[in-house]
């Protein structure tokens, strides 16, 4: 292989690596939400992907009404936050002390309702929101501007969330509820309230990630199907309840997806995600970093 060919090859790999990194930042936001909900409620939110879809299509609907995504994204986040709190208070809260099959089936019902409501409202056509079509040229590398913008928002959001979780009283109550719910309750923390708040925050993160998705790719109301598998793969690779691990997981899944998507087809990358999901569950069910580290 000539020197030029080698250079070109490594440039391509660098390009794919950057794309993978940008995608990982976005996946990370939704996965944190899923992980937090699991940590506090001990509930696997199988409807997380559908909440993402809802966020995406709320922004889409608002933009067809002429509102800019700058207003749309916070609006979608707010609506999803309220919806999450309502879902927790009136549905999940009732079965939170039951075996996991209850909450799993209940959230499956929520997922069915949300998805089919979405299909009724927005049909099954693929749509996207093209707000910043340009791309940035850094040396020989091409990075689409919207990916960069979205990635920046995702990083800021993650940082804010990490700060809230680690440095504020609300965050402290959430962490206490994860570590020992009974003791947290005995110390005067209203664990019920924390649960509702966490579920709301989780769906908020899901919704905002959804708004990123509709700006980057074309999506339809059935997007939750594939998303939920990816999110679970991320959370499992990182270890359930492991906050830091979520980012490792997001990186692994996003890289696998971008590389297989680049060298193969989209279906190929779906296979890769599914394989990661199965392999990590069978080989390292405790996650790459292991254990339950809540912060």
């Amino acid at each position, binding site marked *: 292989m000539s020197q030029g060919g080698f250079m070109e090859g490594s440039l391509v790999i660098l390009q794919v690596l950057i794309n993978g990194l940008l995608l990982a930042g976005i996946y990370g936001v939704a996965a944190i939400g899923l992980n937090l909900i699991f940590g506090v409620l001990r509930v696997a939110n199988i409807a997380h992907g559908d909440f993402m879809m809802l966020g995406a299509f709320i922004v889409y609907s608002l933009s067809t009404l002429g509102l800019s995504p700058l207003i749309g994204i916070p609006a979608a986040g707010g609506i999803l936050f309220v919806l999450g709190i309502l879902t927790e208070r009136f549905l999940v809260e009732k079965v939170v002390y039951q075996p*996991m099959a209850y909450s799993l089936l*209940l959230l499956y019902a929520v997922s069915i309702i949300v998805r*089919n409501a979405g299909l009724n409202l927005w049909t099954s056509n693929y749509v996207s929101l093209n707000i910043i079509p340009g791309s940035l040229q850094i040396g020989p590398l091409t990075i689409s501007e919207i990916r960069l913008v979205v990635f920046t928002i995702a990083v800021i959001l993650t940082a804010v969330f990490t700060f809230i979780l680690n440095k504020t009283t609300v965050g402290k109550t959430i962490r206490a509820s994860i570590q020992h719910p009974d003791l947290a309750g005995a110390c005067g923390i209203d664990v019920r309230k924390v649960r509702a708040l966490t579920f709301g925050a989780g769906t908020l993160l899901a919704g905002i990630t959804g708004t990123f998705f509709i700006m980057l790719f074309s999506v339809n109301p059935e997007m939750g199907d594939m998303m*939920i598998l990816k999110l679970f793969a991320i959370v499992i690779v990182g270890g359930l309840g492991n906050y830091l691990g979520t980012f490792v997981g997001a990186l692994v899944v996003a890289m696998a997806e971008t590389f297989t998507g680049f060298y193969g087809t989209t279906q190929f990358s779906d296979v890769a995600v*599914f394989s990661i999901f199965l392999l990590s569950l*069978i080989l390292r069910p405790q996650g790459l970093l292991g254990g339950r580290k809540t912060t």
Partner: protein
Amino acid sequence: MKLRLGSFQRLGLFLIALLILALVPAIASTYIVTFVLTLFMYIALAYSWNFISGYTGYISFGQIALFGIGSYSCAILIFKWSTPWFLAAAMGSLIAGAFAIPLGLIMLRLKGPYFAVGMMGLFQFLAALAATWKSLTNGATGIYLPPVSALAYIYFAFLGLAAALFLATWKLEHSAFGLRLRTVREDEEGAESLGINTTFYKAFAFVVSALGCGFAGGIQVFYISYVDPTTAFPPVLNITMIIMALLGGMGTCWGPLIGAVLLGQISEFLWAHFPYFYIIIYGGLLAFIIMFMPSGIMGYFHKRKILRGGSHPSLPLPNGPMALKPATGNR
């Protein structure tokens, strides 16, 4: 209310019921026959789901994946080698069953929500595969088969399948084998410590479920004489079979039958009156069942002591494999 029958009388009753049902195509209108045969398919699928999820407690959100494998196997056998349809459906069932052996051994290692999500992923993955593997499945265009000549044969096939699955469940309910299977649901680790090979029992239930789903898929393909990724992996049917088994009471012998017959009627009504919203109503119904009657109609009967002895509904819902234990647990 006490009703006790000997096993001989039970068998007689069962055969009489089968005979009466077998006479339906001779006397009823085409609409009724179509409706009842769809009902039999629902019953067969609800029993198939009940086998794995009701008895072992492994909640599967993608058992329809095996229905799809059966559908495609049957369609390809008919299309490429012009196999007689019933043989093709049986082969489809066997192929789904054979596929389920390695699949079950892998998937059933997953616990808690992972199994559920994993099966859901498998279902998505296979549907995507069917759409892309054009040389085998003809992609999204689908495979067209010769149209059905006699509805009665399809009716008999579905009736036979539903009856066979009912009998298998009945046998499971009244045998030591079934008891050992149910220990997986109650306490898998405890069962293992008593020397029960839980892997074998789980895999067995999974394979029987696959055989049922695959057969139903095979018959259905011939019935509608067409297959594409959406008809082979129908998401609505996936939801329906779960709700039917839950409505009747999962992990019981009669539950899936009651649930399928009841929801079959309701769905016919909903489908006609709310064509766009009926799946949303299904979701609401599922939520209602989980919150207010988790052990289904059979659970209600059992609580009111209308039914004594015999099949215990899984009260209230399986705990075993779904009780996820954290890796380093201090809850």
